[in-house]
């Protein structure tokens, strides 16, 4: 198997302040990886490097074997069209119906008019596909319901279905369960890991909840002040290592934020 994502000495600076790296990292196709670490440790930055929405200040990021820096703007967009991204706050269109939000996953793959038509006047093919995806994430009956009338957990399921509508090769998730209560959060994450296996997806999810990360993912990456401190299977990691990850001591220049 070849790595789907690779970071080679990748570092990101914001206004001269080092936010991430330099990081060397390799994620194989089909792997399920979780990223944990205190807030401000660079989890979101790392995820944004993976789909090319952020360019590294130094070093190189490769997706599917090709460096991001070699891709043109339209090639980058074509790459992103096949990488799903689930955000903490759903990032849906509240005034559209759930099914329309799912179909909006086509925005990166079709032209403007064709995707506009697909979202505003859905055709039977798209609608049936959206319906079966909503069924898969457990809320098939919400197909025609206004998105802003759904609960937070249901909206996140719509967001997952939208990502699946892209028929993606990888699914990235930035704290996908941070705004859902713990029990529902666990169910959502289990859904995502199941989907990853079922569809042979690479899954990279940043998580705030350490116990969920340890329970559900075979590989755990621990970030601290922009550095990879842990990269192993959760079973191999000692309890003390986790405590070090979240302790405030030894952080460079008070980079807690």
């Amino acid at each position, binding site marked *: 198997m070849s790595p789907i994502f690779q970071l080679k000495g990748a570092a990101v600076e914001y206004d001269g302040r080092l936010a991430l790296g330099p990081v060397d990292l390799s994620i194989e196709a089909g792997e399920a990886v979780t990223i944990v670490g205190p807030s401000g440790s660079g989890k979101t930055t790392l995820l944004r490097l993976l*789909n090319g*929405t952020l360019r590294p200040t130094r070093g190189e990021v490769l997706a599917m074997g090709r460096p991001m820096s070699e891709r043109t*703007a339209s090639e980058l*967009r*074509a*790459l*992103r*069209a*096949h*990488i*799903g*991204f689930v*955000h903490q*706050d*759903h*990032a*849906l*269109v*509240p*005034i*559209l119906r759930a099914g329309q939000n799912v179909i*909006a*996953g086509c*925005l*990166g*793959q079709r032209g*403007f008019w064709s*995707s*506009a038509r697909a*979202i505003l006047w859905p055709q039977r093919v798209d609608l049936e596909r959206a319906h079966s995806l909503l069924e898969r994430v457990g809320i098939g009956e919400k197909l025609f319901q*206004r998105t*802003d*009338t759904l609960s937070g957990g249901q909206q996140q399921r719509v967001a997952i279905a939208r*990502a699946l509508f*892209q028929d993606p090769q990888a699914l990235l998730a930035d704290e996908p369960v941070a705004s859902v209560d713990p029990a529902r959060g666990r169910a959502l994450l289990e859904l995502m890991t199941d989907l990853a296996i079922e569809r042979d997806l690479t899954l990279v999810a940043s998580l705030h909840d350490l116990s969920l990360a340890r329970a559900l993912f075979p590989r755990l990456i621990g970030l601290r002040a922009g550095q990879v401190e842990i990269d192993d299977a959760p079973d191999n990691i000692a309890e003390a290592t986790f405590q070090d990850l979240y302790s405030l001591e030894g952080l460079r220049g008070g980079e807690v934020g």
Partner: protein
Amino acid sequence: MVEPRPLPFGARTLTVLALMVLGAVAAWQLRLTPSGLVPQEGGWKLTREFLGAALPRPLDYEGSSSPHWDPFLLKVGKSLLRTLAFAIAAMSLALLVGLPLGFLASDSWWRPEAFGGGRLAPIARPLQVLIRTWIALMRSVHELLWAVLFLAAMGLNTMAAVVAIAIPYGGTLAKVFSEMLDEAPRTTTEAFRGIGASPFAAYLFGLFPRALPDLSAYAFYRFECAVRSSAVLGFFGYTTIGYHLELSFSDANFREVWTYLYALLCCVLLLEAWSTALRRRLVG
């Protein structure tokens, strides 16, 4: 640690004080006194008559000087409809101009990851300033002044009246729309960019719908203003409700005047109810 303030008055206090002083200076300059609100000699009688006519609603003509083509209520209804027709035409034109200009004037449109990047990057800011200046020019002349101008240039024609309203309204819509678009949550538009959507698609499907409840509420409010403006255009001879209102007023048929005013009030209240219902639907 909280640093001690260097001055007893903060910048905010000073601003409020300065504004109060400005208000006082303006009042003094204009010699504003409460006595200006007391009617003059003959004015008392007029005021009494006018206010006295408010309650008994006339459902028929009062004086004999009005041309009695239609029953009075039919005439009121027709003139109200004509007022609405002016307002709807002007507002449609203003929206047609104001919405795209609002997009182009917003900061979100010109962000580097939207249209302010790439080849356009060096001229993005000047372009935006140009558009905002253009919008300010549209707004800076009141619709009644445009109406006077057009009346002088083109004579009494309805197209000129509609355009007179549409120009400043388009400018105002563009300015407020651009601010609302910049305040709308950016998560959805950024998410759409993140899955490869074009800048335009991400703006239109990600940002615009998040601002839509605010945009439509404001458009409704402006429509209400447009109804008032087109009523006032009647004073220039357009046959909106203001035309008949002025005729009745100059004939001292105050009960007719009140009927027209009540008709306008009903119209605005209906609009208000409609706008509230629509907003409730959009906000969910």
